């Protein structure tokens, strides 16, 4: 059947392949999406689809038994927030919450399970709180229900760590509230001063003291972070932007207090409160941006939470942390080995792609060492622990120099480069003006000196960079390009080279095109082959399985003599037929060379049926993206795979692109280091095998098709299908620099105007009260609006 128009999945909105699943005249891209739809339909919850167009999450493989460890009360209890015999409360982090339909569905969870009393979402934090009755349901079934619906929760070892950030948000809010309150009220008390009204009342002097009292709060409580940061900068011998700010605030306060106490004037307390208030808004905006993107996690997130420990013939699920040297554990198919151990069972296949990047699995026999981070392929195996979790190989790998490389934040920041010159210049101006005034009029010296410090206070300057970069960060996040922080943008400005990983990065592993060439297979034969390949996790086997599953109604069949040989293929006996599938050599054909596709041959009962041709498909729009990028960047390809695709890549990439194949993670790391000697580069990769390279590069972008998996070494995460927009993103990032420079120019212009007044000794309280907020607001307005405009034009 030919499909003329693209069919989108009713549940998740992905493109449906030719053989889409259908129910009630609705198309679904996979069995998972169809099942969720049916589950919702059965429970009368299809309002879900009314609230958003294709609101569902794309469903990843769901391994039954994956959450069996939650049956262990000790582990499950650790996750509970509240526990009593009749009532329990649990909170899950669910990264895939993304729209109002999610809120609706997850808050109606009680309709799936009688035991759930109530569920509530915190959309901002992507957190779900469930109240349930322990007699009727348990943690494991809650988690499995969530998985079935496509909202897999994150259950990791370090889930307690994110609670402390909450307290700091609250204090930011309160500081903002207090300074805003002080600002408004000080302005109110300064009204007589503003209008030059001379009210004949004994109360008037008290207004000055009230202002002084309110300002004390601002100085001591709201502005403390500027003083702390300025002090920290000074003690590290860095002139950061907070130093002139702190100087300005202090000058404002001291001078105003003097005027009030000596009854010589009204002071500038309103300017001071405004300054602190506006600066705090800037900080809050920055914090708000970071909070949305808080994705910094550590390696522990990748470890299993619990494993089966075998003690006295008894299997019991225990926490990984409690494992001791010498304990015997059992690791099942697809599980990650948490610590270095010795294999007890005769033989197993281990996939070290997590650690080494090698996608082919390694055979380990009895008595051999298995390193932490390996993933078991095949039946469950037992092993004895050699080292506890924290000492193992994987932890060491992450504690490697490359991973712990501290970024020299202070040196990078554009704003600090400016302030390095700013502070001395302002001090010089203030001192010179004071000296000149000493000759003209001795009484004006202090006045001029403090006026310069007050007016020069770089409020607008300090707001320019955070607002511009923050807006860019928000805008990119909206397009599923998540940067760790604004510093990443500043580092991107320096890059001139992009390094791509191949598989999973520029190719779309899920969309590999598979076709069978040879004798037509009968339905029965298709079932047999599917029943065989389902046992292998090799990407090729999975691609073949997906093809067969769409063509025949696949069922589970008993398999005998199953064998999987590394780099060769699979064989087994099903329904009396002996089936072999694998490379040309493994079924007795001569080795084929120089072909553009990967071939997997099929042999049933000594008869060669043909081969499955599997072609990597490159992401759509890749060529265009590269053409746009090549005017600013050089390219390199670092692939862990064999050079079969070299010809295709040469067509895609501009000439002079360096192509490297068969690269191990260490090779990748070394190549990046070599490039970095001459050029700053961006590494675009996926998975942990690129971790070293991602970290060693100036900016590491990790490509992810599901947001819950990425590497700790990356500076940014990019949704796989958005990779082709990278050129647009880079353009926006470059333009942001121009916006910042213009913002700086504007704020300097204000400063020059203000300074000339200050040097001339003409700064009055009302002049300061007007100039300061106007300069800040106009700069913030300019940067935010220009980024918005750029975003609309470019993205």
């Amino acid at each position, binding site marked *: 059947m030919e499909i003329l128009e693209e069919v989108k999945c009713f549940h998740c909105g992905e493109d449906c392949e030719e053989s889409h699943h259908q129910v009630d005249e609705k198309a679904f891209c996979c069995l998972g999406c169809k099942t969720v739809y049916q589950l919702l339909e*059965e*429970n*009368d*919850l299809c*309002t879900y689809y009314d*609230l958003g167009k294709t609101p569902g999450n794309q469903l990843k493989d769901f391994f039954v038994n994956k959450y069996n460890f939650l049956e262990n009360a000790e582990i499950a209890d650790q996750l509970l927030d509240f526990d009593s015999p009749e009532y329990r409360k649990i909170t899950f982090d669910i990264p895939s919450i993304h729209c*109002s339909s999610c*809120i*609706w569905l997850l*808050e*109606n969870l009680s*309709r799936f399970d009688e035991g759930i009393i109530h569920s509530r*979402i*915190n*959309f*901002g*934090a992507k957190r779900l709180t469930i109240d349930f009755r322990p007699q009727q349901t348990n943690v494991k079934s809650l988690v499995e229900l969530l998985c079935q619906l496509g909202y897999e929760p994150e259950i990791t070892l370090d889930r307690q760590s994110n609670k402390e950030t*909450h307290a700091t*948000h*609250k204090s930011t*809010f*309160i500081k903002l*509230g*207090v300074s805003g*309150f002080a600002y*408004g*009220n000080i302005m*109110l*008390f300064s009204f007589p001063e503003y209008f030059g009204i001379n*009210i*004949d*009342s004994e*109360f008037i002097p008290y207004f000055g003291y*009230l202002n002084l009292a309110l300002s004390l709060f601002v100085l001591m409580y709201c502005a403390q972070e500027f003083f702390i940061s300025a002090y920290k900068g000074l003690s590290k011998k860095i002139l950061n932007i907070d130093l002139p700010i702190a100087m300005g605030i202090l000058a404002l306060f001291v001078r105003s207090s003097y005027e009030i106490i000596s009854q010589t004037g009204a002071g500038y307390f309103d300017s001071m409160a405004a300054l602190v208030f506006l600066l705090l808004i800037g900080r809050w905006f920055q914090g708000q941006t970071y909070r949305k993107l808080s994705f910094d996690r550590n390696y522990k997130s990748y470890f299993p939470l619990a494993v089966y420990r075998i003690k006295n013939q008894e299997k019991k699920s225990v926490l990984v942390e409690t494992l001791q040297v010498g304990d015997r554990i059992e690791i099942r198919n697809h599980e990650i080995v948490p610590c270095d151990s010795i294999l007890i069972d005769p033989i197993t296949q281990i996939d070290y792609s997590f650690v080494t990047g090698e996608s082919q699995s390694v055979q380990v026999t009895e008595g051999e060492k298995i390193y932490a981070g390996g993933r078991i392929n095949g039946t469950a195996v037992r092993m004895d622990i050699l080292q506890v979790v924290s000492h193992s190989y994987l932890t060491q790998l992450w504690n490697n120099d490359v991973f712990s490389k501290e970024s020299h934040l202070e040196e990078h920041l554009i704003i600090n480069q400016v302030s390095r010159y700013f502070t001395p210049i302002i001090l010089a101006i203030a001192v010179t003006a004071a000296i000149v005034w000493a000759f003209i009029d001795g009484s004006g010296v202090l006045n001029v000196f403090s006026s310069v410090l007050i007016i020069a206070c770089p409020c607008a300057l300090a707001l320019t960079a955070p607002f511009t970069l923050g807006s860019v960060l928000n805008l990119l996040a909206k397009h599923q390009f998540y940067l760790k922080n604004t510093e990443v943008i500043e580092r991107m400005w320096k890059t001139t080279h992009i390094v791509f990983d191949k598989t999973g990065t520029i190719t779309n592993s899920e969309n590999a095109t598979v076709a069978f060439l040879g004798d037509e297979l009968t339905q029965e034969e298709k079932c047999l082959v599917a029943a065989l390949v389902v046992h292998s996790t090799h990407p090729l086997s999975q691609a073949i399985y997906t093809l067969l599953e769409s063509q025949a109604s696949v069922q589970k069949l008993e398999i005998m003599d199953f064998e999987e040989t590394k780099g060769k293929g699979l064989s087994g006996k099903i329904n009396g037929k002996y089936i072999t599938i694998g490379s040309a050599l493994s079924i007795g054909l001569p080795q084929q060379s120089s072909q553009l596709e990967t071939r997997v041959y099929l042999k049933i009962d000594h008869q060669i049926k043909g081969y499955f041709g599997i072609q990597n498909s490159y992401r759509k729009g890749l060529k265009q993206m590269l053409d746009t990028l090549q005017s600013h960047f050089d390219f390199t390809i670092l692939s862990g795979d064999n050079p079969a695709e070299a010809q295709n890549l040469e067509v895609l990439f501009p000439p002079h692109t360096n192509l490297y194949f068969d690269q191990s993670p260490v090779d990748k790391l070394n190549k990046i280091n070599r490039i970095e000697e001459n050029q700053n580069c961006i590494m675009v990769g996926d998975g942990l095998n690129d971790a070293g390279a991602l970290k060693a590069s100036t900016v590491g972008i990790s490509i992810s098709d599901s947001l819950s998996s990425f590497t700790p070494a990356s500076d940014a995460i990019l949704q796989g299908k958005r990779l082709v927009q990278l050129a647009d993103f880079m353009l926006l990032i470059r333009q942001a620099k121009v916006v910042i420079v213009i913002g700086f120019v504007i704020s300097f212009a204000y400063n020059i105007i203000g300074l000339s007044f200050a040097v001339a000794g003409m700064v009055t309280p009302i002049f300061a009260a007007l100039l300061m907020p106007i300069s800040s607001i106009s700069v913030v307005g300019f940067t935010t609006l220009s980024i918005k405009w750029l975003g609309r034009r470019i993205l």
Partner: protein
Amino acid sequence: MTIIIALILISLLVALIFLWLFVWSVRSGQYDDTDSPAVRILMDDIKRPKKKD
């Protein structure tokens, strides 16, 4: 004119009350999640009874 000064002082008092309310609302977590309540209020309760089989 004295009345204006009295009024200003009263307004300061009112402002202080609001400041206290603000601090209280922040502390009690009303700003922790500003997105979901806005969506939640628009959602209808499910009236149809649950299907039983």
